[in-house]
């Protein structure tokens, strides 16, 4: 198990290296430069040159890359051109929002998806199976931003049950020590805020979680269909074990192996790319932040932010691999 983990970690290095080069090259290939973005109309060649010099953009590329890598290793991504705050602090402020949203979405996807997938498989070809399969196909056919729009329209605008934008009611005066609003509300024992924050999480969570839900349902169903025909399930039945025990300990436990992988992958995807949902709900997470930075050509943010998200994605994938190793004794032991 240890060897397995170390090997996977080592494989990470060339990928991260390649990524950093890719991101760096990309940022420097972007048409227009930060100077243009900053100065806008007042951009004269002299001024542009001055800005470029200020940001060290007139040095040879290789030197720039090395200085960039040097800073990265020290977790210094520079300063945002637009907000003048350090990129690291911007990430620190916004990533928790993305994490919370991702967790909400995945909880929704897993909480509904696994039981639904399980029962669809057990009641193969019944109405529950057909409905959930048709539903999941529909789920992956709706663009996230359209679903977000529909949810907002129905539940926030028309019915008024839930808020339409943001993470929290802006009129509330609360502190956020950790940046995780749910956690903060719990820590300060503020029930009112907790309820408010949770209400804000519902619609975006459902919107973002619908595609993972559809995928989890399908994978669970496929896995259970495979497993329920295995010989060891027949053995479990022949032992006279009760149905819930057979379902849980023999069928589900084995079916969860591929499902866990998919869940991990989906989480990684959400963490690094919830852009569209964040925009529709004005969520203030990493995705929307980066998207804005692209338009502003805020290159320190881009260099640091995209690299950060890519690293998160890679690390989550690695964790998924390791977790699979832990879950499956055939890999874990000997």
């Amino acid at each position, binding site marked *: 198990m240890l060897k397995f983990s170390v090997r996977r970690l080592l494989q990470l290095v060339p990928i991260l290296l390649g990524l950093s080069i890719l991101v760096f090259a990309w940022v420097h290939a972007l048409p227009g430069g930060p100077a243009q973005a900053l100065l806008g109309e007042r951009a004269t060649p002299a001024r542009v040159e001055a800005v470029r010099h200020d940001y060290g953009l007139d040095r040879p590329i290789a030197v720039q890359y090395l200085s960039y890598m040097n800073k990265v290793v020290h977790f210094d991504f520079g300063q945002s051109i637009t907000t003048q705050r350090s990129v690291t602090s911007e990430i620190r402020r916004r990533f928790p929002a993305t994490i919370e949203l991702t967790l909400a979405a995945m909880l929704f996807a897993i909480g509904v998806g696994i039981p639904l997938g399980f029962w669809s498989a057990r009641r193969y070809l019944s109405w529950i199976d057909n409905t959930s399969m048709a539903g999941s196909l529909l789920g992956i056919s709706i663009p996230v931003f359209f679903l977000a729009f529909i949810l907002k329209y129905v539940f926030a605008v028309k019915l008024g049950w839930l808020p339409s934008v943001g993470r929290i009611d802006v009129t509330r005066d609360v502190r956020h020590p950790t940046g995780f609003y749910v956690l903060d509300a719990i820590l300060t024992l503020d029930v009112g805020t907790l309820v408010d924050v949770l209400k804000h999480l519902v619609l975006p969570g459902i919107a973002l979680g619908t595609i993972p839900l559809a995928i989890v349902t399908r994978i669970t169903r496929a896995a259970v269909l495979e497993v329920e025909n295995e010989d060891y399930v027949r053995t479990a039945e022949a032992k006279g074990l009760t149905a819930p025990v057979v379902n849980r300990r023999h069928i589900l436990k084995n079916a969860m192996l591929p499902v866990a992988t998919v869940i991990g992958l989906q989480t990684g995807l959400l963490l690094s790319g919830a*852009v569209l949902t964040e925009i529709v709900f004005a969520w203030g997470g990493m995705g929307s932040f980066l998207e804005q930075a692209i338009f502003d050509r805020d290159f320190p943010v881009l260099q640091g932010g995209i690299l950060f998200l890519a690293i998160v994605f890679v690390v989550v994938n690695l964790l998924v691999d390791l977790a699979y190793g832990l879950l499956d004794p055939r890999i874990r032991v000997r």
Partner: protein
Amino acid sequence: MSLAEAQAAELTLELEPDEAGGRWRQVLRRMARNPLAIVGAGLVLLFVLVALLAPVLAPYKPTVGDLSRIRPGYIPGPSAHHWLGLDQLGRDELSRILYGARYSLLIGVVSLAIGASVGIFVGATAGAFGGWVDNLLMRLMDIMLAIPGLLFAIAVAALLGRSLRSVMIAIAVVNVPIFARLLRASMLSQRESDYVLAARSLGVRRGRIVTQHILPNSMAPVIVQGTLALATAIIDAAGLAFLGLGSADPAVPEWGRMLAETQRFLQSSPQLAFFPGAAIVLSVLGFNLVGDALREALDPKLRR
């Protein structure tokens, strides 16, 4: 031709009793019995027909608008003259939706064709040659896959500027590693199968084995992935347009853009966002239904 080659050729004929023709006919027959596949095929057909015949079907020009009909807070909804009403610039919504199909189809098909071709080529090369070629190519693919899809597409589109072409290239690029991985995996598993072993033991040359045996048999998962990737391409294209990365021309009736522009009419005229959204859903659903039915028909285990 040596005796071994002759025997190998004979064996080739025997090994593929009803390969290309027969097998696909069987698959189509299985799909024909699946009601969802029929619905999906119908939707796809509708989508393609609309895209191709938009100029003929559309009652008005999609880019010409009559601003006099628009007043603050009021946009005419569906009526006898305009079945889906007008949009915020006085243009006929129905015509814009119909023309939008062209852009979606164009982007979807072109980007997929490029991405899949390049991907298949890379994957086939890696699978066929193995060794350091395989290693290098797959390492490159891994790096590309390390960046989550949408982010990658956004990055590429931003690099190339706001145009339809950059959206197509962005989606194509995102698809390359997916198809490369898929084809390589498929080839690898075929390589180990008995019929390949049989052919090799008879002395059939490696190149021949690859092109005549392995490649055709590796195509099935690729085709399934193709239909599903087309669906994803349309959604991603809409997503990119939503973010403002599509064509810079404000008149272009691209569905994703239409959704983005009408967000602010949520309260007053929600139907303006609903129509393009529904159009996307229906087209994508069609491809997903077909792709899913195809997958079930090709999988010997998933018998109904």
